[in-house]
């Protein structure tokens, strides 16, 4: 336990990293299937079926990353878990009800009598929208330090919209990859229409964070750190440019490059998330509780870590396997 120096230092750091990774994987993976739900009203009935088919085998596992992320927060930083979730009581409840609605709608819309299908389609859209909006709202409140003031509330409303549009963007890039013909062309339009949400969302959070605390401001704008950080915004800008150039010419003949918008969108998320993580470290509750103060006892963290080292690679492996088995364009999902 003392192999790598003081365990009260490195264990919280490792767990913050694991939790961050889980959140990042969650926003990318569930981001695309939430986005598909948000895009639902723009599709006709046939297209809806195909969009569902493109996420059907994955959504269960995608949402499990949220359980892991909140689970790690719960087990590794119990006091922060309480502080964050009680402050966000209402948006959390709305998100949960949204997740419930969309999760069960997957099953019900396929099994209920045909006249009810419309109702479950609506439930799927409403649930996805509620989930996305409340997650965006929570992001905004978190960035602003979890204080319920009017200014923060307004900012959180803004991020709620941006994140939802951002999710619809990554959802559209997933549909581009997993479908073809008319729906694919439609999805290219959706992606072009949604990219601004991502840009404005990243922009708003990036601009707001340095002004919330001088500590974060200094982290970004002091010499020489600023020099090391310059590649982050530049790379992001290049990615956006590349995405836009690509989307304008899509779809390419023989479906070439159909996976690239999704990959580029993922890369953008990764960078935005990296920037945020850099800003907030070492705090888990912004400007109030650091990961070192909130961490569980080292012996408990250590026993979780042992399991994590074995299990996480396994989870990764069979997640990749599942995506491989269901690779290619979404055909109809059959039970047999």
């Amino acid at each position, binding site marked *: 336990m003392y192999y790598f120096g003081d365990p009260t230092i490195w264990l919280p750091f490792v767990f913050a990293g694991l939790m961050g990774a889980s959140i990042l994987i969650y926003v990318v993976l569930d981001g695309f299937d939430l986005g598909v739900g948000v895009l639902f009203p723009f599709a006709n009935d*046939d297209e809806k*079926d*195909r969009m569902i*088919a493109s996420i059907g*085998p994955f959504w*269960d*596992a995608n*949402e*499990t990353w949220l*359980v*892991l992320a*909140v*689970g*790690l927060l*719960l*087990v*590794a930083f119990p*006091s922060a878990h*309480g502080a964050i*979730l*009680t402050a966000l*009581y209402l948006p*959390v*409840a709305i998100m*949960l*009800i949204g997740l*419930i*609605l969309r999760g*069960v709608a*997957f*099953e*019900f819309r*396929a*099994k209920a*009598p045909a006249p009810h299908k419309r109702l479950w389609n609506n439930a799927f859209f409403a649930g996805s929208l509620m989930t996305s909006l409340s997650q965006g709202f929570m992001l905004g409140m978190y960035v602003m330090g979890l204080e319920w003031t009017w200014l923060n509330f307004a900012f959180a409303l803004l991020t709620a919209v941006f994140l939802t549009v951002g999710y619809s963007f990554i959802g559209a890039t997933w549909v581009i990859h997993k479908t*073809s013909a008319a729906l694919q062309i439609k999805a290219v339009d959706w992606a072009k229409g949604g990219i601004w949400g991502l840009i404005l969302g990243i922009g708003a959070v990036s601009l707001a964070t340095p002004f919330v605390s001088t500590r974060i401001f200094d982290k970004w704008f002091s010499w020489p750190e600023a020099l090391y950080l310059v590649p982050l915004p530049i790379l992001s800008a290049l990615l956006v440019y590349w995405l836009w150039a690509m989307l304008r010419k899509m779809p390419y003949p023989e479906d070439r490059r159909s996976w690239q918008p999704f990959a580029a969108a993922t890369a953008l998320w990764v960078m935005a998330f990296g920037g945020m993580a850099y800003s907030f470290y070492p705090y888990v509750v912004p400007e109030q509780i650091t990961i070192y103060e909130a961490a*569980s*006892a080292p*012996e*408990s963290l250590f*026993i*979780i870590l042992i*399991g*994590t080292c074995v*299990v*996480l690679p396994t*989870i990764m492996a069979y*997640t990749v396997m*599942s995506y491989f*088995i*269901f*690779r*290619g*364009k979404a*055909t*109809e*999902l*059959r*039970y*047999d």
Partner: protein
Amino acid sequence: MELETLLLSRIQFAANISFHILFPTITIALGWVLLFFKLRYNRTGEERWMEAYRFWVKIFALSFAMGVVSGITMSFQFGTNWPGFMEKVGNIAGPLLAYEIMTAFFLEAVFLGIMLFGFSRVPNWVHTMATFLVAFGTLMSAFWIIVLNSWMHTPQGFEMIDGVAHATDWSAIIFNPSMPYRFTHMVLASFLTVSFLIAGISAFRWLIGGKTEGVRVALKTAIVAAALLIPVQILVGDFHGLNTKEYQPAKVAAMEGNWETGTGVPLILFAIPDEEARENKFEIGIPKLASFILTHDWNGEVKGLNDFVTDDGEVLHPRVSPVFWSFRVMVGTGLLMLLVSWTATYMIMRRKRGVEGLPKPMLYALVGMSFSGWLATLAGWYTTEIGRQPWLVHGVMSTKEAVADVPAPLVLSTLIAYLVVYAALLAAYIFVIFYLARKAAKGESIGTRIAPTPAAAPRPMPAE
């Protein structure tokens, strides 16, 4: 104000966990039943096993989705409403929950996709393997959750440092005294729930004319399984009760409605416990039987509720009526299950008439018992969980210590929202199960998950 928050938070947690447990109770056992169907198919090549598999895998998928989404809600409830719990015992609860998520939740969630939609995409053995892994994952999930729950009833293997629990012995924590009993009791409850569900829905299909080979094997398998399991369950329940008497005597006293410590205590069949007067009204009992069941001695001493009131009047036992009544509902349902499953088995076995030997009233009785497992399981959980009060972790922390300081109206508003959603979903769930059964009985295909689309768009094949 604070009291209202506590009460509302408790009701909300109870509503969430009651709704949640309905679905794992089905999936824990149904996964293994599906594996059984699949293995029979692999071995015999008979289409009827696959027919049963295809129908029940849909119910499984539906139940699984309900379980996942309500389970996510549970993981957030700790933080939004009960932050004190993780702050005080997080060092123990945390790793157990983490292992549940990592070893079980992911396993189920990922392989479920292959189990549901992979039959034509992967080799047969991979599909069988996926079915096994999903069933195994569900059982593992139950294991870790029961470990944590049992530890809250019979905590050990830890020390308190500055008011926070620290683990000292993980094997003592995992194999705490009530865990083996509770786990066995719950897994059997799940198998019984599924047996009666399969029997009930199959009887329904049989009654409305869907007399296929798949229905026949499912009905027979379920009835025989129920008949075999119910006596085992009653025996395990008895052992579980003895274990509770040793570690949580106040709970047993409430289950029995026994106020005064005494010898030769009667087994009370019916009574209306009066919490104010601390006595039973309209008591009907069998003399000395409670002493005999609990101590195996007609004159054995059994502790009464009055022993759990401190000198300054603090009550350290649960409210009696809910525990007393939940326990009777559970036992009553169990006895009814025994009666129905044994009678039905006798009818099947008699002159080897098989499913044809079941008369209409018996089929109707089976349909009526479709969800009896839910009733017994919920009643059992209410008995044990309300019976733990006023403790959250027995002897370590009280429930009111853990509750979040959220304004009562806020808790009330989310509670109402949850209740509305849950009621609607429960109605939809039961409706859809019977709808699928009717559809299957008419011989309509329920094989595809989405409607087959006409050639509106050229359908590309997966890039193989």
